[in-house]
Structures are given as C-alpha cells and as structure tokens.
C-alpha cells in the first residue's frame, strides 16, 4: 500500500535537516527571543508555553537550545559537573511534564527555568547534607508573586532588573559575596559566617544593608513597588 501523502513531498528529502512543517513559525519565535526586548521575548515565551502545553516536542527542543546554557551554568556553579548534568535533565523534563506551572504573564521563561534550577539544586544539596527538611514536591516557587504583573508591567520589570544589576555592582566585594552566598548559593547565615570568617551579626547586617541599598536605588529611579510608600497608605485607608 503506497502512501500518497509521502509521495507528494519527495523534494524535501534533499535538503539537509529538512525543517518540519511548523518551522517557519519556530524560526520566527527564535528570532524574537534573540532580540531580547521584553515584549517580544514575552510573546515568544508565551508561544513556546502554548506549544509545550500542546505537547509539542519541537518546542521543548527550542527551549532547551535557548536556555540550557544558562541553566547549566547555574547548576554547574552550585553542584559541580556530574550532578549538574542530572539536574539539568530534571529541570527540562519538569517543564515538559508540567508546562502549566509556567505562566508567561508572570515571568520570563529563562527566569523561571533558572529559579527552578536553583531550587532543585539546593534541594539536592540539602538532601546530601540532610541537615534541613527536604523541599516540598510542589515544585519551584514562581519567580514573581502570585498577583504578578500583567503584560503591561513587564517592561517596568525589565527596568527594575537593570536597576538591581546596577545596585549590585555598587556593592563592596564583601557585600556582594555575602549576597551571592545567601541568594544564589543558598547558604544559611551561619554557613556564610563560617565560610567568610565573620560573625553571624555581620552577615545579617551586610544582607540588610544590601537589600536597603537595592530599595533605595529602585526608589530613586522611580521604580519602587508598594513598599512603605503611598501605595500602602492608600490601600490601608
């Protein structure tokens, strides 16, 4: 029995890596992601999220191509190579199995994957150290709060992210290291104190100072969110 569908498209055999029918669309979304402007990235992320929910394997492949380097960088830093390889697979398969856990309106896909990667990595470290209870199986926390911003707020978020980067770069080396140990490597105040050979109180005050500095920078840029400012007062009245 001959398959006429196949016979109708013999030419595509001769192009190496012949793209599947949906390729035009995919190329476009990759292009948008490469441009990195927040609205376009968000559109591309939303398109990928939709395709993941439709169980489109090519979408997973694209997400992997776009973000595996960043995810692996973080995992390798936190876990070393062997465990990083394992958790990397875990991260992308979790996205594949629970695509609905990613909401493009709340965060960029890259951020989501990086936060999930960190959370899984810290889980693993904890399991090894067995000094703290295991992380719940409910998965990574969403990187932005539940009542997170809608599409309009995303560009403001990008500006805030830039300001936070700038603020971090203004910190002293000791402050920056303390912040990284706490909010990247997931070390406790006591662990940081031991590793940096300073009292726990110093660790705490450095962290408080750093957070305050971030807030000040954001406020002076006019990008503060409902802190102890007028939004709260309005809300409380």
């Amino acid at each position, binding site marked *: 029995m001959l398959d006429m569908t196949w016979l109708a498209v013999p030419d595509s055999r001769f192009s190496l890596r012949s793209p599947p029918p949906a390729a035009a669309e995919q190329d476009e979304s990759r292009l948008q992601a490469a441009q990195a402007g927040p609205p376009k990235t968000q559109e591309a992320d939303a398109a990928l999220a939709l395709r993941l929910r439709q169980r489109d*394997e090519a979408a*997973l492949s694209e997400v992997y191509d776009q973000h595996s380097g960043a995810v692996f960088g973080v995992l390798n830093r936190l876990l070393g190579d062997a465990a990083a390889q394992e958790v990397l697979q875990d991260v992308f398969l979790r996205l594949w199995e629970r695509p609905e856990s990613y909401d493009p309106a709340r965060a960029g896909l890259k951020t989501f994957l990086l936060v999930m990667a960190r959370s899984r990595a810290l889980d693993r470290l904890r399991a090894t150290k067995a000094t703290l209870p295991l*992380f719940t199986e409910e998965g990574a926390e969403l*990187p932005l709060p*539940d009542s997170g911003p809608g599409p309009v707020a995303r560009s403001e978020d990008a500006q805030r992210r830039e300001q936070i980067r700038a603020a971090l770069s203004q910190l002293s080396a000791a402050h920056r290291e303390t912040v990284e140990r706490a909010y990247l490597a997931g070390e406790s105040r006591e662990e940081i104190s031991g590793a940096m050979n300073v009292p726990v109180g110093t660790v705490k005050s450095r962290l408080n100072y750093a957070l305050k500095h971030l*807030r000040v920078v954001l406020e002076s840029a006019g990008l503060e*969110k409902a802190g102890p400012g007028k939004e709260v007062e309005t809300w409380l009245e």
Partner: protein
Amino acid sequence: MAGMNENDAQHCEMVQQQLEERVGLGQSLTPELRAHLAGCPGCHAHLTLLRELEAALLEDVPPMQPPAHLKTQVLSAARQTRIQTQTVAPAAQARPHAARRWWPLMLGAAAVSGLLAFGALLTPSRGTAAALPDPAVVVAAAGGLLVASNDGGGTLNLLRGDQVTASLRSGGAQPAWFTQGVRLGDRVYLADAANDRVLEVGTGPLRVVRSYPVPDGVAGLTASSDADGGRVYFKTVRGSVGRLGDPQHQITVAREDGMPLADVMDGVLLSGGRLFVTHHLTGEICLLDPETLNVVGRVVVGGAPVDLAPEAGGTVLALDAAGRLLRLNAGGEVIRSWPLPGHPDKLGVNGSVALVTDRAGQLTRIDLVSGEIQPMPLTHPMDVVALSDGTFAVAEGGGGGGVRVLDETLKTSWKRQGGKR
C-alpha cells in the same frame, strides 16, 4: 507608617525575615506566609524584591554549554513520557531508579494520556484485519516481519508482504513498551522496558513462548547463532551484561552509576569472537569475552553510542546518537567517522548502505563507500531493520505511522498504514 500599629509592624518584620530566609534557601512559602502576603502589600513588595534579586544573581552567572548528549536524553525521555506515562504504575514508581525519580511528578499529564490509552485497550481486536497501532519495533522474522506496537496492549503483528497474517496482545502487568527486537532462528526476542522483561516470541504460529525477567530493565539485546545453538545477550539499564536464561552470569560494565534512561538504548553485538557493548553514558565501547563476560577492553569513542551493526569485513558500525556513524575495527577503535544530522538512535545496514532513524522525524541514508548522506523526513521513525533482500523495514510510530519497506535508494516499496483500530 500610617494606619499600622506597632504589632503589625513587628509582625511584618518577622514575616520579611522569614521571606528572606526562605527565598535564600530556595524553600517554598508556608500557608501562613501566603495568607499574610495576600493582605499585606508591604511584605508582598519585599518578596518581589527578593525574587528579583535572586533572578538578577542567577542571570549574572555565566552560561556554560552542557554536554551534547544531554539534549538527546532530555528529548527522548520527554518523548517516552509522553507516550509512556500511562505505563507508570506502582511497580515502576517503587523502584529506586535515579532516572525514574521524576516519574511520580508526571502523574498529572499521565491522567490525560492514561485515559486515552485505556480507551484503546477497550477496543476489541479485529484479528487479522487489524492495522498496525503505533509500531515501535520491527524484526525480520522467519518468512515475514514481526511488528511490536506500544499501543497499550503490546500488540504483536506478523506480516507476510504487506498483509497482516496474525495478531496477538502480549499482555503484561504494565502496558508493554518495546524498545528492540532480535531474531534467533524461528524465534524473535523483544525487549519490553515497561515490564522489565524479554519476550521470546514464536512466529509459526505467532505466540509468546516465554518471558524472561530482567529486573534491572533491558537496555540492549543481541542474538547470536554462532555458538552452540544460539544465545541472546542483553544489557541492563544499570549497565550490566548477561545471557538470557543464565541469571547467575551477569557482569557489570558500567564503571559508575550514571543516569540510566530506559529509553536510551545501548547496542550489543557479537563480532569476531568479542561481544561489543556500547555504554552511551560514558561514550564507551566495551569489549567482552562472550563466554566469561569479562571485560577485555574499553575504547572511549565519545558521544553517546547507542546501536551497533556488523559489516562484512569484520568491522562494526556504531551509531552515536550525538550525530555520528563510526566504523570500528576488531579492537573497537574508530577507523572512520561520518557526521550525521540530528540524534539518530537506530541503525540498519545492508552491504554498503546504512540507514539510521531519528525519532524527532528523520531517516538518513549513508553510502558507506562514497560517504554521501541523504536525509528523508518521516514523522516518528522508531526502528529500522535490514532485510535479507537488500531492502529495509522502518517502524513509524504515532497516529499516521505504520510500517514501510524501502529499497536501498530510499524508494518506498510498500507501506502498511498504522492507526488505532
């Protein structure tokens, strides 16, 4: 702060400290914290700031290219779970398999696909009129093709030419998940990864003769009729090699517990008095004494070698899922390499023509003399086997799949359409 009394302020400070700690340690929020956040914009804003700080630090870490074979593993595991989630029943979950530790997380998706598979199970078999549902493995059996389907019922079909002449359901505690098949005389041996067993199937008439348990999971299979009557060798998911029906005799070739993935197969082949075994996790070819199963040599070829085929001159072809076809000498060393597109995982060789299949949607023909590479798109080519008349049979999974026989120029001789009923 207007409107806030001192207790509230103290409470918020405590909440914010807890938020700092939990975000720092990557822990989820307690219901109490969530409840407070829902009614407190100040603490909510604090959480936002912490999450943004976390994200900024994460994005500042320089990217690093992961090893290429990881993508293959992720995609094939994803593909497997898409179809196989319904086969994940308590037995499979209970196993202390590192690679399967995420399976329980898939049950959400499984609920949907499981329903579909269950529906298929309820459909009565129409006997010889049945089409080929979701073919996964095709074997050149005595006098025809044996096609094994991952359709939920583990359907086996025997084809003479393009006609189905016999059909049966293989059963099993889990719906079967066939990954490979080999022929030995009038028998066919099928690796069933879902039930951790190898089925011995007779083809005249079609029947399941015996089921061999392989508790560690089957990752590779080969048959050899060279020695006294014939033997079937298997490799387990955990990296040991054994002979079927000889449970006392099993040798571990894996040097360390890696990341076993049942869906990423390994190749096993007897050639020149040596048992060639690929170990895709480390990119190695292991050479074993087929009698003692002792490892007599290891060659690092790199990539992720997953399948093997013999060549007339005593050389062996090895397929690297990272995208290479390798020719190995009797010592397992690479003497020639052809770059291939995609991530092919099955190999069939007839004379100077090799066909490899990439389940992502491509069949590739390699002319072993001229080196010419010719790709051909197919929806989900799952398996390819070289037939004795110089043609090849390809199992195509998925809804529009079926079994296709191609000649050595990739011209389709015939196709038996798949379909669910």
